[in-house]
Structures are given as structure tokens and as C-alpha cells.
């Protein structure tokens, strides 16, 4: 088993030196083996999404190192790091280009990390590949290859973004609360698709979520964060037996506070 992601003691403070100073990540370290699917949970401002953005290279970290598939990517800019990563965002608007067609979005994703040349953007052969990939979603999108993505619903867009993230197998799939903006039924469907794509492609994945139940049900590992630190790192058999009550209990024990997010309990 190869180590796919290694985060080594990273720190990030936003607006350092101003009254808005916020320590977002305060010494986070963990690593993922190939094929690991970790769910990351925690209250608002715990640093979950910030950690994920640090891995994605949205901005440079203040200190610490990040390795993906053994390569030190700490200093790589976001678009250069993209060749290692598949990403799905919280806002369904973020993952796709709305004024472009479904096939164009997929073609752009198929060329992730490659040089953009002056050859035609979507070939006939790939069109067929995309059609069969879309068919696996079972959303009727396979007949709408040339439709603008802007015409699709949030759930459909997240499903397409998931496909896009996996067309070219990434070393690591980053899911940033990607079902939080969807209605419960659609969210369940998108989660189901996520599980399937991760399993079918044997992906290593990291899923940030607000929802404790989702965090327990999905993946083989679970990380809980609080105030920019990892306070819980569970895997294997222990993860399988975990319940929401256990998690709440653990959270109170480690943090000395009550779990502050109503959303996590209610949803």
C-alpha cells in the first residue's frame, strides 16, 4: 500500500496581524493510504474545508508540507496541482462551466493537467465515452451531450462534476461538502454516485461533511477536527462500529465543549 496523501504539520492563519486574524489550521498532520476514503467532520470553523483547500492549493500554507502520491506539492500553484486531484465543491455552480456544454465540460476535465493545444476540443471517440459514462449516472443526461450545463439542476451538476473528477483517474478525490446545497433526496443520490465512482475506480478520497451520519456510513476512515486541529482519527473496525452518539460523546470528551452545529444533528 502506497501513501497517497501526507499532510505534515501544516499551519494557516488568515489576515495575520489584523483584527480579523483567524488561525484556520493549527498543526494538522495525517496521511492516507492508497484506496482510503476518509470523511472529515467538525463544527463550523473547525478547519475541515480549509484543510481540503490547503491540499488543493487554493492558497499556500504558512508552514508544513503536503505530499500527494509521494510528490512534494507544497509549493505548486492550484492549477499545477490539479493534475493530481479531482475536486467537487459545495456550490454546484463551482464545479462546472455553465455556459459550456456537458461534453465540453467533460472534455476539459479529461485534459486535466495536460497542455491545452490547438487541436479540436471534443473528438468523436470521446463523445461516445462520455455518453456511456453519463449513462451510468442514470439521470438521462446521455442524450443531452450538447446541452449547456447551466440548464441542469444542482444535483445533475454535482453528478457531472463527480464524473469529471474521475474521467482521468486522480491520485486523490476531494469532496468539499458536495451534498450540503442539495435537497435530502438528491443529496442521497449524489452520495450514492460518489460511493460508486470511488469504488469502481479504486480512488483515494477525502470527503468533508457536516453530516455525522454520512461521515459514519461512508468511507473506511474518519477524522474529526476542532479549532484547526485533528482531534479524532478513527479507522478500521473501530470506524465500522461507530454511532452518532459515540461521535458526540468523543467530541465532548476531547474538546470539552458541546458539539455546536445544529445542522450536523438535524440533517
Amino acid at each position, binding site marked *: 500500500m502506497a501513501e497517497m496523501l501526507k499532510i505534515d504539520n501544516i499551519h494557516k492563519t488568515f489576515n495575520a496581524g489584523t483584527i480579523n486574524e483567524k488561525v484556520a489550521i493549527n498543526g494538522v498532520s495525517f496521511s492516507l493510504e492508497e484506496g482510503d476514503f476518509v470523511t472529515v467532520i467538525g463544527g463550523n470553523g473547525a478547519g475541515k474545508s480549509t484543510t481540503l483547500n490547503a491540499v*488543493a492549493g487554493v492558497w499556500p500554507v504558512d508552514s508544513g508540507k503536503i505530499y500527494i502520491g509521494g510528490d512534494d506539492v507544497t509549493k505548486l500553484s492550484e*492549477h499545477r496541482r490539479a493534475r493530481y486531484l479531482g475536486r467537487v465543491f459545495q456550490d454546484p455552480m463551482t464545479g462546472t462551466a455553465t455556459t459550456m456544454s456537458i461534453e465540453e465540460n467533460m472534455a476539459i476535465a479529461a485534459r486535466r493537467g495536460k497542455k491545452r*493545444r490547438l487541436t479540436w476540443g471534443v473528438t468523436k471517440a470521446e463523445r461516445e465515452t462520455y455518453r456511456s459514462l453519463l449513462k451510468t449516472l442514470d439521470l438521462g443526461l446521455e442524450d443531452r451531450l450538447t446541452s449547456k450545463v447551466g440548464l441542469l439542476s444542482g444535483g445533475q451538476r454535482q453528478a457531472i462534476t463527480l464524473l469529471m473528477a474521475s474521467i482521468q483517474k486522480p491520485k486523490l478525490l476531494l469532496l468539499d461538502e458536495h451534498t450540503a446545497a442539495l435537497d435530502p433526496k438528491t443529496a442521497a443520490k449524489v452520495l450514492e454516485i460518489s460511493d460508486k465512482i470511488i469504488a469502481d475506480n479504486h480512488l483515494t478520497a477525502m470527503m468533508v461533511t457536516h453530516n455525522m451520519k454520512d461521515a459514519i456510513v461512508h468511507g473506511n476512515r474518519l477524522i474529526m477536527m476542532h479549532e484547526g486541529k485533528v482531534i479524532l482519527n478513527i479507522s478500521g473496525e473501530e470506524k465500522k462500529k461507530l454511532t452518532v452518539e459515540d461521535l458526540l460523546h468523543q467530541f465532548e470528551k476531547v474538546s470539552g465543549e458541546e458539539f455546536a452545529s445544529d445542522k450536523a444533528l438535524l440533517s
Partner: protein
Amino acid sequence: MAILMFLDPMALVRSMPGAVAQGLIWGIMALGVYITYRLLDFADLTVDGSLATGGAVAVMLIRNGVNPWVSLLVAFLAGMLAGFVTGLLHTALGIPGILASILTQISLYSINLNIMGRSNQAVSVDKYNLVVSLRYISESAKVRIFATCILFCLAIILLLYWYFGTEQGQAIRATGCNPQMARAQGISTNFHIVIALMLSNGLVGLSGALYAQFQGAADVNIGRGAIVIGLASVIIGEVLFSKLCEGKRFAFAYTLLSVIAGAIIYYIVINVVLWLKLPSDDLKLFSAIVVALFLALPYLKGKYMKKEKKSNG
């Protein structure tokens, strides 16, 4: 009613070929504006400077014995250089886009004066074998000038249609539509912003060079308010023809055609305004009002439509 007696309908008819030719030439500039404003989502005011640069470069080259066709190519390259500067100011130096383009535009004013040595330079169709000239409009050779202008426009539309279908063109469109998505897909947004600004201003420079030959002179002030004319063309084209283009095969080519059509309509309207003997001093004010109206129209329509049917998600 009395005023209508002074208006000569034949004069209006006579002015139309000129208006259409002007629309075709400025339509090339409008295509440049379309690239930045619509595809890249970048308000690029470099245009006002690079249009005059294209004209200045072409006229000075022709006066120095360079082939007028070659001068068009060099004007295109000069425009690209202007776009490159705006792109660098924005991406490498972090200056907000609109401000970066204003800085380039202002500096181009001085540069254009330096290129020409004074504020305007003539180039006579009698002395040089120009690509297009106003002079032919009223003569038998007017078929040639229209053929030239139309072929130019069609060739550029064809090239743009191809380019924006390539991997690189798609990367530019993704950058303009959703930079976050673009970066997540490994697209260098900075690189593609610069490329798009260069292509756009290249077309603007080419348009300026054609227009200078058409007019028989280059003028340092020719570009003043060009961006407004470009926007007007883009928006008139959209408002009038977007329904016709939507969902069609080659929809993008039709959209580009509609930009040219928008420019032609703009010049026809301007000619009507002049024909009505409205003071030409007020033309820029009139243009601005037209653009403001057409810009506001889709917004107001959207606002009204939203109230009509709220649930859609």
C-alpha cells in the same frame, strides 16, 4: 411635419452603403470586444487605444512603401502587443483588469502620437493600392469593397469558430465562465487571460488598420469611445438575434455573425440620426444612451421574469 420636407430620402439611401461598409469594418473590432467582454468576462478598455494603434501602424507602414496587406498583419501584431501589456499588468502585477486596460489605453495615446509623429496622417488611395477605400463606395467598384469586407469578416468568424472549439479556446472560455473550475481542471487562468486579451486586441488593431485605409487617414482620436461601439454591437446583436442562434448547430458562428450584424445596425441607426439632422456633437451621448438601454434591457427583463415565476430549482 414641416421638418420632414427638408429631409431627402435619397440622401439616406445613398448613405447606406457607407454605413454597411463601416459596420463591417467596425464589426471586426466588435468581435474583439466580444472575446473579452463575453467570453473572458473582462471589461477591456485597451480597445480605445489599440484601435488607433492599428490605424497608425498601418498608415505609417504604407507611407513607407510597405504593402497594405502586410500592414494589416503588422497592425494585428501591434494590437496583440497592446493586449499583452494589459494582460501582464493584470496577471503578473495584480492590477484590477479594468484599471490595467485604462493604463494601457492612456499610454497608447502617447505611443500612437509617437508612431505618427503628429495627431493624424493621411494615406491616399491614389498613391497606394489600399485594401479598402471609402472612395469606391459611390463608384462601380463598390462590389469589390463589399466583397473584401464581407470576406474579411467571414474568414475571421471561421477562424474564431475553429479556435474557440480547440482545447486552448475551450480553456479560455472556461477561464471566463468559471475561473475556479478552470484552475481545478489544471487550466492556468492567468495564461489564458493574456492569450485572449492578445487575440482580442489583435482583431481591434486589424479593424483600426482597415478603417484607416477606408478613411484614407489614421487619427489618434479614432478610438475614443470605440469600446462603447463594440459593446453596442455585441449587445444589439444579442438582443435581436440570440433567440435565432440558440440551440442551433454552429450556434457560436451565428453568434459571431450577429455581432457583425449588430455593428452594421449600429451604423445604420447612426446614419439615420445624422440624416435627421441631429447635431453630430451629440452622437457619443446618443451612443452611450443606446448602449445603456440595451444593457439594461436583459437585466430588467430578468428581474420582471423572476417575479413571474419564482420557483425554479
